[in-house]
């Protein structure tokens, strides 16, 4: 088990190193010099050069790369070109919106998907199964931002239960903040819940065909007992994979939903930074997201080993 962990951590670090190189290189070749961008079209060559020196853009590439990486390891993500504030502060402020949003959307998706998937699989071919399959088929097809627009129209404008957008901050209390995130979380969760329910259902149906489920039934377990005791845990591998992917997606991919609800999240930060050529912010946020994805993948790997003893052998 320890060796398994060690191998996973090694590959995690390797991925991060390569990813940092890729991000750095791509940002290097991006056209558009931040210094001239910040100063506008009319700035003189001298002022541009002065700003470049100040921002550290005149150093060679290699020292800049190592400066960037070692900074990140110390928690120093540099200073935003545009706002002249530490990137770390900007990011943590945005994470206070994006992280709770992603977590609540994912929780909601799981809470909706599990009963639906289990019910559909245990009553395969029945009415419940058909209804779940029809709803999820639709849920997968609906663009979340379009769904969000109707949520706003109905719950914010017509019935005025929620505000139509914006984020009041956590200062007004936990529930106040959560209330502002409710509609976005629902909009994000619907398609994810649909995908998850379908994956769970089909994975369960596959496992229910396995020989050991038949053995369990020969022991005297009912269909339902066999599903709960023997099929569910074996069906979890693809489900865990999807949950991992969904968390990564929700953290960064809420960009469009953040636009619909005018939420100050990570997605909008990247969006603005790209538009303003605030490349140091872009670099750091992308690295942070890559780190999140890799970390989640790692956690999913550990969950695999917990679910399935055959995976503990370090392969």
């Amino acid at each position, binding site marked *: 088990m320890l060796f398994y962990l060690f191998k996973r951590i090694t590959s995690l670090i*390797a*991925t991060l190193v*390569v*990813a940092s190189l*890729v991000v750095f290189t*791509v940002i290097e070749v*991006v*056209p*558009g010099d931040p210094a001239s961008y910040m100063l506008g079209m009319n700035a003189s060559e001298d002022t541009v050069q002065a700003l470049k020196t100040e921002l550290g853009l005149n150093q060679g590439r290699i020292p800049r790369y190592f400066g960037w990486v070692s900074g990140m390891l110390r928690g120093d993500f540099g200073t935003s070109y545009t706002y002249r504030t530490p990137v770390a502060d900007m990011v943590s402020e945005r994470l206070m919106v994006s992280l709770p949003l992603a977590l609540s959307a994912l929780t909601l998706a799981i809470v909706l998907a599990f009963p639906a998937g289990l019910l559909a699989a245990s009553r395969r071919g029945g009415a419940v199964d058909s209804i779940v399959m029809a709803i999820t*088929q*639709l849920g*997968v*097809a*609906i*663009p979340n*931002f*379009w769904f969000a*627009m*109707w949520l*706003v*129209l109905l719950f914010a*404008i017509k019935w005025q239960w929620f505000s139509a957008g914006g984020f009041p901050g956590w200062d007004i209390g936990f529930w106040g903040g959560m209330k502002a995130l409710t509609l976005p979380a629902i909009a994000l969760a619907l398609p994810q819940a649909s995908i998850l329910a379908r994956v769970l259902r089909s994975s369960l149906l596959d496992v229910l065909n396995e020989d050991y489920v038949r053995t369990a039934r020969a022991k005297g377990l009912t269909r339902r007992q066999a599903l709960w005791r023997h099929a569910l845990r074996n069906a979890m591998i693809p489900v865990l994979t999807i949950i991992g992917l969904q968390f*990564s*997606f929700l*953290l*960064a*991919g809420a*960009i*469009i939903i953040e*636009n*619909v609800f005018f939420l100050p999240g990570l*997605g909008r930060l*990247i*969006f603005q930074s*790209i*538009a303003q050529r605030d490349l140091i912010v*872009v670099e750091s*946020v*992308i690295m942070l*997201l*890559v780190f999140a*994805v*890799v970390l989640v*993948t790692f956690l999913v790997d550990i969950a695999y080993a917990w679910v399935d003893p055959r995976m503990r052998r370090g392969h």
Partner: protein
Amino acid sequence: MASTTRKRFRNLVPGAFLVVLFFGAAIVSFFYTPFDVETLNIKQRMLTPNAVNWLGTDHFGRDILSMLMVGARTSLAVAFIAVGIGLLFGVPLGLMAASYRGGWIDEFIMRGNDLVFAFPALVIAIMITAVFGPGAVNAIIAIGIFNIPVFARLTRGASLSLWNREFIMAARVAGKNSARISIEHILPNITNLLIVQGTIQFSLGILAEAGLSYVGLGAQPPTPSWGRMLADSQTLTTIAPHLALFPGMVIVLTVLGLNLLGDGLRDWLDPRLRRER
């Protein structure tokens, strides 16, 4: 027997119908649209559906049905070519990885795949379109790049199990090399899987394109696009909800159609399922 046949085509027929419908609309739009989509007519703006403008008009007085027809071109073309990119690069990579299974080439391709998967897709898509300028071509590239590892992984996984089959060993005993076996024996046996995954990626591509054009990074005006029609309608939902309704429904129906088609094809092409029924 009649009922089992019906069951077999339960997903396939409606799926194919929807897909053909929207492809047809896109093709027809090259020759004919009810109204010209580039002519603004402020007097006729925000009409609700009526006998002349079947689906009403938008805030510039353009006919929504015509715009949806022209918009179908962009959406379908972007998603279709993006799937093409995924197939073109992903399948050969996957075949190669499988034929050198366990070797360094395999390891290299698969690690490269993991690396692409580690990047948040939408963020990279936004970066590409923002850096190289918004537009349909960059949207294609942005969506296409993330299709490559999907197809590479699928191809490798499916090929690996085939490489252990006895008919592949028989081909090797007949003196055929890996490349030839990959093309003659592996590829024809994974085509079904690729078609099914292709329709799934196609539908995801439609959603991604809609999202990108919704935030203004897809096809640029005056070319109509479904996503931007939604974005334009957003501030008007209270006074003219039909502006948001129709483009959204078109997206939903296209994606639904493709997903149904994918499920239907899987059921239809899978000989295992066919035998069961």
